């Protein structure tokens, strides 16, 4: 029973700012139906949304695979975008390669990855230039 989980998959369309956030919205809705604490839902929302929007802006889209357990959520974000050359740099608060027109939309503060790391209990990122990026996050429900 404790090992049972709900699996959800979302396609995150590239360069479609309108649909960014819809995977996060659907996951939030499920967690609310489960009665997960709102502070935990908030952490999931932020981590998930930042991951989603990164795939939209920087990678031309990707997929989000979500496994929801009784006491935790595993989020896997995978894209076949351009990849990140210097991961250490990318993880620094304030570092961004977002083009100017995207920054004008209010993105590109360079806070996405640092915030994902901050709000997730387990955070792992793998990336290869020209191949793509994979982010794995786990958030435990208190």
């Amino acid at each position, binding site marked *: 029973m404790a090992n049972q989980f*709900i699996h959800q998959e979302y396609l995150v369309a590239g360069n479609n700012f309108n649909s960014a956030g819809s995977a996060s919205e659907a996951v939030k809705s499920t967690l609310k139906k489960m009665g997960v604490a709102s502070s935990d839902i908030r952490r999931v*929302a932020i981590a998930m949304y930042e991951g989603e929007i990164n795939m939209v802006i920087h990678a031309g889209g990707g997929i989000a695979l979500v496994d929801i357990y009784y006491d935790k959520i595993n989020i896997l974000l995978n894209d076949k975008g351009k990849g990140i050359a210097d991961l250490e740099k990318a993880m620094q608060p304030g570092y961004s390669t977002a083009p100017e027109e995207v920054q004008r939309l209010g993105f590109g503060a360079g806070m996405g990855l640092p915030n994902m790391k901050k709000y997730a209990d387990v955070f792992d990122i793998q990336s290869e230039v020209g191949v793509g990026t994979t982010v794995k996050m786990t958030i435990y429900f208190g």
Partner: protein
Amino acid sequence: MNKERSLTRILTDKALHTVNLDPEKCRGCVTCMRRCPTEAIRVRNGKASVDYDRCIGCGECVRLCTHNAKLPSHDSWDTLEDFKYKIVLPPPSLYGQFNNLDNIDIVLSALLELGFDEVYEVGLAAEYVSSVTKIMLDRKEVKSPVISTACPAILELIMMKYHNLQDNLLPVLAPVDVAAKLARERAIAKGIPAEDIGVYFISPCPAKVFALKMGIGVNKPYVDRVLSVADAYMRLVPVMNNLKNTKSLTKMCATGLRWGVSRGEANAIFHEKTIAADGVENCVKILEAVEDGSLDDIEFIELNACTAGCVGGVMNVENPFVARGRLYQLARKMSTGVNHLTDVGKSKEYFTWEASPMVKDVFVLDEDRFTAMNKLMEMENVFSKLPQVDCGLCGAPSCRAFAEDLASGVIPADTKCPRLEEEKNQ
């Protein structure tokens, strides 16, 4: 007027529903069900039925029903007999109902002719609310982005679905409550016995009727009766046309009047980074974005369930956009200033919540998380076998909602999808 007569004369706790159905008129057409923003409506035995636990009182179903089967709840005009000393609170949206109105005093004087002893403008109270809001924002007393709580339909939605955002809520009383509080005190100070005083609000929407009856953010309701704008309109027009002398009564400035339309509240606090969204669907998008942390740089968010703001309330008579145009026109003729808090000589606490509204767990499938999870898995299982066309034949607004009703036991476990059944029989 038979619409009015079919309503309870005065809404008591038991009859307290946001909207009521006239079963004779309802054809079970699924229009309201499909568009209810909280999926609170199901069609059972050919009639629309509302799950009131999920109803936020936005009035969308009343607006959409082409058969006039949905009636918004409010007190009837007969309740004017209930009190000896009657104070009426007209909302800013009321003034947008009248064609060629160039002076608010005409409406206020006509209200006195209709039998009220005193008027207190909700728009004036709104200006005090704006001053208090500005102070709280200047001092950063509330977590940003601060979310307005003036629209009770949106507040109810947040209490049901956005528990995350409780700390962002502006803990200030709605202008109508402030108006009622101040007006009642003023009458008592005049020497009128408290038990003789009745405070009447003229409401643009069922959400405000419900909120005022329940008393949201207050220890006990300040308003005694809640009438509808439409009822007031019908009685006001003939009186306004024959008004002999217009008394000088209005104190409200353009700032208060503009509270009747979307952006009015946000503009009144003079902060740079504000958002104003109207229409429930648009408000939902903003609330989701606040949860995701993508609006953290915004200072203040005004949300109105109705398109164009309270002029779009379903108990008005005029088209929201026409009414909005009129309010703008009227505002241009009015003082651009704003009434200051110092005029009333009350502390900030006078205007803030006396009691915090309670969150509601209406969307949780089960108290026990394991059971809730099982229901969710069952729901996914059922959903995967449904046609996923959201036709509404089953009486639920979407295939997903039908699956949820089945899994959560709202409908009998052996209920079949009528569309699939039909296919089978062909």
